[in-house]
């Protein structure tokens, strides 16, 4: 049957199981919008294209499905770039459809023309310009295939207006294979055996897990590995939720604002079992002093992540879940090891360290402590909420003081560090799970970067809760200025913040302000029970710092505990 490009596109989305897209219309995509009501696909109209991508990203991270966006050409397309780069750094499967000027005008500096394929080449897993409507179905199929397989990532498909309007026979490919793309999922047996031998021979092992475990749906396997073989676990920011934060084997997050115990465990370990993590500079600190005594086993689906920053003894290219399953099979074959008693001394040493140097903060006088607010959110939600964050101090406190027990419950821009991510991501996560509580732990700086999405939340009554830890500063930069730049608070004071409560109300949402310690808990409870979107403006200690801290470029063993 002959169909238009717009019909083919929407038919393809249905075949891929897409029932929700985030978008913003414009001249170049108006034909797709014209066709949209004829298909059972829900469209969420955002207020800025960056919001569309972050929302699709939050939806994808929370659900494990591919997030989809539709925007117009030119500024519509360029507005998606930060969202795409965010998803690329954190390996989130997205497909972004951008409108484009008609093919005969491409290169002509036409109205609302931008070379979005050129612009996004370095921040997409792959991208396409569709020049012929007969290639459209195949391209869409390939885009979804690439986005969700291997190391997931964003894929962009640029759609010139004449291609959308042209007609062709519709054939959707049943399956996809590519000669130039064959991700390796199953681990090499010999390497697994070497890994098992190293674990059996180690006396101070540490598991260092990252977002790859969550992307591979391997959190259950990771938990089983650690518990069965008595291995202490630390994770990266991206790995929070891959291992229960309530388990005695949990050491806390590692890295720049990681726990003392996690960082010292890395420093003293004789074996590092890295699973789906990429030795990011915020994790390693000074690379040549990272895990100086340890042999390193590294599981990763992306070969480029292995031995990129830190040399590895046993590289294992595999899907993290399959790698974990294979490792446990090999460990089961190791005989004569008393796993329960084997690392007892090491675990006792780490437990003592945890008691001595827990995550902590000075008890408050008159001011509300932001860390305490996060602890209260944990208490009230009993760890069951999906938490999103912005970037900066709010992000670190949300990582440190909420205990994540399940994967896909902590959504944060780890790699790119995008302020303005958390609120639209919360909207996406809430749409994936309408019945769960979704809380964006925000700062007064970050929240203003995509605050326009209040209109989206209100118009669809998406009941996300935004808790603004309002300290009147761009807090993380201020902290660096305080510690490393002689308190030269240049451009970090936000003296002219808006009235967030009035602002929320102006958009039609609910808003509360909290200024006294005793009001924190009742107001949070009231906010979380409210059926619609809510902003809670919590006035916290203005000059509170995130601690502990490894200064940039220092070794993990050189932590500042203040």
């Amino acid at each position, binding site marked *: 049957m002959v169909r238009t490009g717009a019909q083919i596109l929407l038919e393809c989305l249905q075949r891929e199981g897409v029932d929700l897209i985030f978008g913003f219309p414009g001249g170049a995509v108006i034909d797709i919008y014209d066709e949209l009501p004829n298909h059972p696909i829900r469209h969420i109209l955002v207020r800025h294209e960056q919001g569309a991508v972050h929302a699709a990203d939050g939806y994808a991270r929370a659900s494990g499905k591919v997030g989809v966006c539709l925007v117009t050409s030119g500024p519509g397309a360029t507005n998606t770039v930060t969202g795409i780069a965010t998803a690329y750094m954190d390996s989130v499967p997205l497909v972004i459809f951008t409108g484009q000027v008609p093919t005969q005008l491409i290169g002509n500096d036409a109205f609302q023309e931008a070379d979005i*394929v*050129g612009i996004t*080449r*370095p921040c997409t*897993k*792959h991208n396409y*310009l569709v020049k012929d409507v007969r290639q459209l179905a195949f391209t869409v199929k390939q885009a979804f295939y*690439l986005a969700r397989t291997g190391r997931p990532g964003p894929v962009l498909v640029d759609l010139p207006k004449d291609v959308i309007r042209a007609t062709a026979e519709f054939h959707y490919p049943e399956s996809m294979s*590519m*000669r*130039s*793309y064959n991700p390796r999922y199953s681990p090499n047996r010999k390497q697994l055996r070497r890994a098992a031998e190293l674990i059996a021979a180690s006396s101070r092992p540490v598991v260092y897990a990252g977002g790859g475990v969550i992307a591979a749906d391997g959190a259950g396997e990771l938990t089983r590995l650690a518990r069965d073989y008595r291995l202490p676990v630390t994770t990266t920011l991206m790995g929070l939720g891959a291992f229960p934060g309530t388990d005695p084997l949990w050491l806390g997050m590692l890295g720049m604002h990681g726990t003392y115990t996690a960082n010292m465990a890395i420093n003293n370990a004789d074996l590092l079992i890295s699973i789906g993590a990429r030795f990011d500079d915020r994790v390693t600190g000074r690379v040549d002093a990272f895990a100086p005594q340890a042999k390193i086993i590294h599981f990763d689906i*992306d*070969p*480029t992540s292995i*031995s*990129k920053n830190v*040399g590895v003894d046993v590289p294992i290219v595999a899907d993290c879940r399959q790698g974990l399953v294979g490792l446990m099979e090999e460990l089961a074959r190791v005989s004569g090891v008393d796993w329960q008693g084997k690392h007892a001394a090491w675990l006792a040493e780490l437990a003592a360290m945890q008691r001595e140097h827990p995550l902590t903060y000075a008890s408050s006088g008159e001011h509300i402590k932001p860390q305490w607010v996060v602890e209260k959110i944990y208490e009230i939600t009993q760890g069951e909420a999906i938490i999103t964050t912005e970037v900066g101090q709010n992000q670190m406190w949300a990582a440190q003081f909420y205990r994540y027990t399940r994967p896909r419950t902590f959504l944060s821009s780890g790699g790119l560090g995008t302020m303005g991510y958390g609120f639209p991501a919360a909207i996406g996560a809430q749409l994936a799970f309408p019945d769960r509580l979704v809380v964006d732990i925000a700062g007064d700086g970050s929240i203003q970067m995509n605050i326009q999405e209040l209109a989206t939340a209100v118009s669809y009554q998406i009941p996300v809760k935004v808790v603004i830890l309002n300290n009147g500063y761009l807090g993380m930069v201020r902290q660096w200025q305080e510690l490393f730049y002689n308190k030269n608070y240049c451009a970090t004071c936000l003296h002219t913040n808006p009235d967030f409560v009035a602002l929320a109300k102006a958009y039609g949402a609910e808003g509360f302000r909290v200024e006294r310690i005793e009001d924190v808990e009742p107001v949070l409870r009231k906010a979380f029970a409210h059926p619609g979107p809510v902003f809670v403006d919590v006035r916290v200690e203005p000059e509170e710092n995130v601690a502990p801290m490894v200064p940039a470029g220092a070794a993990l063993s050189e932590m500042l505990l203040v």
Partner: protein
Amino acid sequence: MRHVLSILVENEPGVLSRVAGLFSGRGFNIESLNVGPTLDPTVSHMTIVTIGDDQIIEQIIKQLHKIISVIKVVDLSEEQAVEREIVLVKVGAEDSKRAEVLRIVDIFRCKVVDVSVDELTVEITGDKNKIKAIVTLLQRFGIKEFARSGPIAMRRSMQLAD
């Protein structure tokens, strides 16, 4: 160390930009880059000469593999390979110099491909050492124009043990 990478890519728009962008974006060096079609019209062949230590070369090869349009990457430096490059050089050859230039061209088995009253254009084919040698010799006659292709390379059929 200098490495010669032989790369098969999908012959599609933007593929050169993907490869070149990888090198610039990650701060890798390109000494030369050469692209052409293969006998299969859907596949292009690139030869890239790059410089880096073992860890950097390993990263470059892995990153090239990661580009979706890249089909195959071979590091020819690890193999016994033949390498050839073509150079066109326009050299001053007024009456008195002419015989000398032609003699050098002859010794190196090069070809004169264009002639005028006071200039000769010479085509040089060879590996980088031969090219360096003849260019050094021709320089004293005055090189007016110079163009080189960058090397192409191929694995030798017989891989002899060291």
